């Protein structure tokens, strides 16, 4: 006959996982806390302006770390991506050009014209002109 343990009556099916999770966190946190305490109590702290400065391979840090990129880079990247994919399709098209049937050629031309239309649209929207 199995006696139930006096502590922590495990009812919920996930309770064991919760207990194990807590144990794992404590197991990791205790050495970290001890190391932090040891450093607080015994390490000879010698802070300085340069020691606390941003590490930049020995050079002095210049400017702000929060560099903002212009949103037009995003549009430019999208337009580039479209024509990047187009180039991938153009290569086999050019290689097999002499052996292609007329419908296949027309299909490819439609594809090209769609993309060229997109480029003209982007151009008219002023995406490619830089402020």
């Amino acid at each position, binding site marked *: 006959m199995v006696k139930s343990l006096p502590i922590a009556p495990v009812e919920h099916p996930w309770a064991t996982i919760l207990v194990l999770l807590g144990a794992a966190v404590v197991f990791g946190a205790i050495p970290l806390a001890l190391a932090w305490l040891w450093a607080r109590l015994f390490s*000879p702290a010698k802070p300085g302006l340069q020691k606390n400065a941003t590490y930049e*391979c020995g050079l002095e840090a210049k400017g702000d770390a929060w560099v903002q990129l212009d949103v037009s880079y995003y549009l430019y990247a999208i337009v580039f991506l479209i024509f990047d994919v187009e180039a991938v399709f153009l290569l086999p098209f050019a290689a097999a050009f002499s052996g292609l049937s007329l419908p296949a050629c027309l299909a490819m031309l439609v594809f090209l014209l769609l993309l060229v239309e997109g480029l003209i649209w982007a151009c008219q929207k002023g995406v490619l002109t830089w402020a």
Partner: protein
Amino acid sequence: MDQDLKTELSKHGIFATSFEELYNWGRKNSVWPLTFGLACCAIEMIATTMARYDLARFGAEVFRPSPRQADLMIVSGTVTKKMAPQVVRLYNQMPEPKYVIAMGACAISGGPFRDGYNVLKGIDRFIPVDVHIPGCPPRPEALIHAFMALQDKISAQHLTGESRPRHLKQELPSEFPVPEFGEHGLEPAQNDEIFHNPLKVLQG
């Protein structure tokens, strides 16, 4: 504890040590160098870390790419005047206790480029050097020898008293002044507090 008593005890199979010895033993076997190569000596330094010479035997295989985690700066190669401020700044950014090995003729004196207009005549003009290695470039065995000399130095340091290492003296500043790259070379040309020109010392 008396040294004779310790050897007597060890004969009877009793190992006695002090906290200081234990602390220094740990320190000397976990010296992490900074990933920092300046010139051709760096190639020898890299060779030292590889399997054939295996610096890992001394607990120093972990070359840290950030000065925040490094204990040892191996100045391996020619220090140009353009580079010297960066070397000093990196040294300042390393946490105490920190040590410096000047590796090769260039790092200790300027070497074959000593008469050049753009080469620093030894890094000990700006930061305190613990071990100098002669050679052009020194062989990996020489670097290992220097490393063992540094380990001896660390294990001989007392943690209390007047001879305690620099990092335990609260009154000493944590940083060394970084030279500026001026119109006619570095300004100042050396840190007079730590560098004493041997020629002037000889003249009195």
